[in-house]
């Protein structure tokens, strides 16, 4: 028996939480938003979501095959990307849009950088921005919510109305429940909140990023004379804050870094909404901050235990 003993480095036990469990929890947390999307936008929502997920998984599979790397569809991260991408599309888009989007997300934003953990921008968001720039009209054609998706008249979103100086047209309750025009998964703040709380309870994410992000938008909107409550309920802030900004791969590892990152996103989102020509700024803010995460991280490396802050300065001063 003796020659069969396994010799390996400590530790010899590990936490039962693995990558796949985490991704599965994210998928579960996205289910309330999925249900809400069907309630407000009808069966077409499911179709877009299914196509997006399928495209992402197939692309992931093919990429890994071509690169002759181990297969990673089992970690479920492609499913998460697929869902998030679909949630960022209007119900009106033709079916080729999620297909192109899924391809861009997985192939360009994720696998070309080496797969899970290596991408520096959130794949779903990157794809959304590419789609917005390629199909600006398709990506901003909102069908009215409610009636199980029967109503296909184009209407303006809340934030577009605010931008145009028009009537908001919807109550806080509509915006909270999600009974408003917008992307499939983003309209229902309630559904996202349920999912977000689930993620927090399951310790998949900690509240710091969504909390700081949303509070910043609220406070800054109030300061800039926007209706703060409508600003946080409308648009993609909740889904962005709970599901995109918290993406492990593209957010800072350090606590201080996370706070700075969330704060900066909040400021940027509000400034875009208030001053830029775009009605919505969540996607751009997150994407931009994704890009400077390495910088934030470098500036916020914690001091090793017991080390004193800037010993050099102290020494110089004492001289």
């Amino acid at each position, binding site marked *: 028996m003796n020659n069969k*003993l*396994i010799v390996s480095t*400590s*530790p*010899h*036990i590990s936490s039962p939480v693995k990558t796949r469990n985490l991704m599965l929890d994210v998928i579960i947390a996205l289910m309330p938003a999925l249900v809400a999307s069907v309630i407000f936008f009808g069966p077409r929502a499911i179709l877009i979501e299914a196509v997006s997920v399928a495209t992402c998984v197939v692309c992931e599979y093919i990429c890994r095959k071509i690169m002759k790397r181990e297969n990673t569809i089992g970690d479920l991260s492609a499913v998460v990307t697929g869902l998030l991408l679909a949630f960022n599309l209007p119900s009106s888009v033709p079916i080729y849009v999620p297909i192109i989007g899924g391809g861009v997300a997985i192939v360009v934003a994720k696998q070309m950088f*080496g797969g899970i*953990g290596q991408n520096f921008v959130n794949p779903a968001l990157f794809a959304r921005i590419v789609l917005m720039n390629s199909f600006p009209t398709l990506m901003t054609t909102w069908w009215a919510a409610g009636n199980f998706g029967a109503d296909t008249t184009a209407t303006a979103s809340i934030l577009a109305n605010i931008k145009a100086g028009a009537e908001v047209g919807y109550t806080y309750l509509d915006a909270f429940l999600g009974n408003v025009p917008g992307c499939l998964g983003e309209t229902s703040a309630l559904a996202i909140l349920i999912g977000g709380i689930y993620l927090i309870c399951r310790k998949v994410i900690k509240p710091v990023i969504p909390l700081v992000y949303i509070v910043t938008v609220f406070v800054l909107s109030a300061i800039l004379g926007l209706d703060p409550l409508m600003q946080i309920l409308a648009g993609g802030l909740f889904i962005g804050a709970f599901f995109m900004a918290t993406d492990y791969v593209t957010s800072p*590892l350090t606590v201080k870094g996370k706070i700075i990152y969330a704060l900066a996103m909040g400021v940027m989102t509000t400034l875009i909404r208030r001053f830029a020509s775009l009605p919505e700024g969540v996607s751009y803010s997150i994407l931009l901050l994704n890009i400077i995460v390495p910088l934030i991280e470098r500036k916020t490396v914690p001091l090793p235990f017991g080390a004193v802050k800037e010993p050099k300065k102290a020494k110089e001063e004492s001289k």
Partner: protein
Amino acid sequence: MAKQSGFLATLGFARDPGAPVPHRKNTSASATEVMPVPATVTIAMSMHIGAPCTPCVKPKDHVDVGTVIGSSPAFMSALIHSSVSGTVKKVDSILMPNGSKTQAVVIDTDGQQTLDPSLKAPEINSKEDFLEAVKASGLVGLGGAGFPAHIKLNPATPVDILCINGAECEPYITADEHEFLENYENVIYGITQVRKYLGVEKVLIGIEGNKPGAIALMKEKTAEYDYISVVTLPARYPQGAEKVLIDQMTDRQVPPGKLPADVGTVVMNVASIGFLGGYLKDGIPLTTKRVTVDGSAITTPKNVRVLIGTPIKDIIDFCGGYKETPAKLISGGPMMGIALMTDDFPVLKQNNAFLAFNEKDAKSFEPTSCIRCGRCVDACPMNLMPTKLEDGVLFKDVEILKEYGVMNCMECGCCAFVCPANRKLVHAMKLGKMYVREAGQ
């Protein structure tokens, strides 16, 4: 780390150092059983940090319990005594668990366990006498480090606090808990003596909250000493790590590369102080050890008092043998213990547990890509960024390794435990330290 950041950490506004390891203190209620004298013992000449001892006996010599069989003129070393009475069979070179070779004295026991006639309680009138006695006892840090006690108890800077480490944060192990329960008199006597000769003002006994029996007992028995306090520690790994323990109990942080004495503290493991208390009374050097034997492949998990040099397989036989084919055998706890390639190894002074696991529990998971979840960063008690350090190791980038402080890593394993991608982070840290050391030369 150390102190729990509580609510802020739950919200993510502060780090949450440490790891939620399972406790599995199955042997908590198992009073220590004394194991019979084995047929032979193999006493290694290197059971401490520092220079190995040179055997000072030869084959056919008769030895008694407590006879010195190995010594070294080096400053950093510790005497080695025979744990049995019997005849020296051979002086041989053996393989140690870490892969190095060392000399060892193999003794055929006679079962009489006669004490060496020269042994007597040490006569102590001064600090010098005290340190001499500690040196003669062969005591080394019994918590696992094996640091010679006569050096630790003679710090270069003045110390005012003695911390007794009874945290025992590793899963499974309950040997220290039983040191409190079964040997508290000697623990307290040892404390009074160290206090007297080291001149410390305060003594803090730290015990994790998952050992209420030991806490209550020690509170009761130390009530009459106004300088001793019993501190209930949070039962969170790695509470027993020296720097973490000191921070938790005294609010002092030992800076990188420094020793506890640099912040005025001395830390002794409870088993060490308990042994010392006994030694000062009866003069019998370090020849036995209490070890916890547990794990899914062990028939009857137990606490066993064993003679140093006893082959591990004899101890396991004493615990009813293996109930399943063992796939992994660990000396120490599952977080920091060393995986042994065979159960032929003899017990060393600093051993405190042997764990044998069946195939299911021994299985290690294949590493997948780091998902940058930050769990390792959050968990590191030394405030390091293990995933960054792993990158530094992959690229063999000594600058990165130094910048991110790889040398501060204490190999506690929290990072690897929490990693959802099964990254072999401790292995990487070991390599990283090696690269830095190599580059420094």
